[in-house]
């Protein structure tokens, strides 16, 4: 039996991810800043929902939504990110299917949907539903149907997590992988948290060329959308791109953990 304190640690990490994602949504205020930022808020919304769902799965005392509710949510989420991946692929080619911006989120959402749909009811201690995953000190843990699919999902999640770690720690990390925070005076609107091409002749490149030398690689990508005086600059603090990537890594590892222990 897996000790409950190990599951509690993973659940606590997920609750932190949920809190951070909620903070990002509040800080970004997509409902005030138009469709472009709202279009990217889907990632934080996805992180928030997935983290809550996983915490509920890991800790039996944490009641969230009924399984049916989560299935509907993750089915919609899977369809949404599937649509975005197909849209990316039409514009950027087939590489977007595996390496695009939305592909990891599609895998995450699909894995969540699979977990809720494939989980067999625990056989002991009467815990029903995902909230019973750790019921009875794990003796009531369910198992997943189609374990091969669980394994493949786990491999994909591990792969994306490893890739994210590598990119996040690269010396030239920018865009979603930037560890830096932006202080550049914005000169052009670039989607929040999304890298922009920085080079001669581009708006971002121009901004960079005129920026102080101490600025980091990612700054032009994060010098986004002139914020109102009361709004935080995008790419700083909780809105820094690496925060979202860090959340994605934590969720990917936790999700792979859950898939493997339920095989």
């Amino acid at each position: 039996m897996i000790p409950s304190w190990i599951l509690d640690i993973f659940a606590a990490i997920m609750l932190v991810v949920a809190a951070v994602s909620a903070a990002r949504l509040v800080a970004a205020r997509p409902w005030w800043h138009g469709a472009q930022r709202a279009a990217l808020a889907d990632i934080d919304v996805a992180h928030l929902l997935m983290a809550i769902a996983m915490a509920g799965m890991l800790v039996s005392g944490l009641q969230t939504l009924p399984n049916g509710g989560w299935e509907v949510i993750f089915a919609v989420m899977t369809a949404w990110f599937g649509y975005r991946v197909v849209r990316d692929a039409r514009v950027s080619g087939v590489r977007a299917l595996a390496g695009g911006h939305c592909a990891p989120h599609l895998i995450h959402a699909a894995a969540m949907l699979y977990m809720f749909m494939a989980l067999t009811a625990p056989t002991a201690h009467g815990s029903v539903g995902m909230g019973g995953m750790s019921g009875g000190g794990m003796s009531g843990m369910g198992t997943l149907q189609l374990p091969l699919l669980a394994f493949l999902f786990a491999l994909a999640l591990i792969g994306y997590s490893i890739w994210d770690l590598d990119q996040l720690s690269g010396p030239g990390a920018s865009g979603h992988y930037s560890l830096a925070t932006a202080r550049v005076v914005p000169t052009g609107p670039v989607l929040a948290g999304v890298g922009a091409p920085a080079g001669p002749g581009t708006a971002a490149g121009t901004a960079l060329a005129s920026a102080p030398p101490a600025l980091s690689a990612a700054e032009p990508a994060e010098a986004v959308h002139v914020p109102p005086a009361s709004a935080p600059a995008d790419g700083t603090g909780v809105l820094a791109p690496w925060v979202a990537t860090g959340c994605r890594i934590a969720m990917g590892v936790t999700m792979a953990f859950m898939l493997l222990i339920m095989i």
Partner: protein
Amino acid sequence: MRRADPRFPGMAAVRGMDARTEQAEESRMSEIAAAGVRPAARGRLGIGAEAARGAPDVRRLLQLALAGIWLLDALLQYQAFMFSKGFSHMLAGTASGNPGTVASPITWNATLIEHHLVLLNAIFATIQLLIGIGIAWRPTVRVALAASIAWSLGVWWFGEGLGMVLTGDASPVNGAPGAVILYALLAVLLWPADRGPAAPFTAARAVGAPVARTLWLVLWLSLAYFALLPGNRAPQALHDMIAGMTDGEPGWLAALDRGAASLVAHQGLAASIVLAIALVIVAVGVYLPAPYAKGALVLAIVIAAVIWGFGEAFGTIFTGGGTDPNSGPLLALLALTYWPARAAVPAPVRTAPAPAAAVDEGTAAP
């Protein structure tokens, strides 16, 4: 390197773009966010010519694959079975048949783990988790690879009974010479160092081509030797080994194993000879010219896949009792480290940053 892109004219254009352009912009930006950073990063890592060609750094990709396997190992170590006495009994079982000097520490270790099962297994899993993350996190790659070597050697002895190579029961089909020793070997071969100006394959970059080829030869010849041990060439040896993997497996995998077992029933000697010949071909293959070497490496990958699927039942992961994916994926990964380079692999060149890298670092002239 990053290039000017006329599709990104700036704020005004973004504000005014129509729906189709917006879609293209968003997708393009997303792509760049996910991938566009890599060339600049490579430039500053000193990957030089490869980056200039736009090719990925093969060694880094192989390191990431190794990191992924370590992470998989770690998560498997958190399974419920590993917190049960079955785990310590499994460790104790590896002492059987080993010489006393090898077996005694194994027994002591298994007893210790049994007494502190939850704590020690949680520590074991966490160590592996940190190794995987450490290899993937660039600043800690050396520390993590060094730790992985030390950890692997310890587990090879205390957890795998030196791969049973001293017992006469080792077989390449069931994981000899021990999966975990292959982690250590991969860590050595993928160490981020370069010994010469050019290397014919990735594994040669860290230790040099002669040493790398010798390690490969020793490994695969030893596998050929194990295949021909009396216990493995008995008429029903291979059949029994494969058929014994079906317990607890999903139906489709058990059926596959049963089918494979029936194919080699009473054919132990012939199967062992064929396997040994194939393993010898693989062993000497890296000394052959590149086209033949590639053929030998493909054969190595095929053998690894067959062993993993039929002999190791995918590391018995589907039973909930697999501590790791076993040797199959590691042998395949090892083969990829010997894949002949398209051109000579350059040593890291500490050149001045390319223009885009300089821009990235904020050192470009205004």
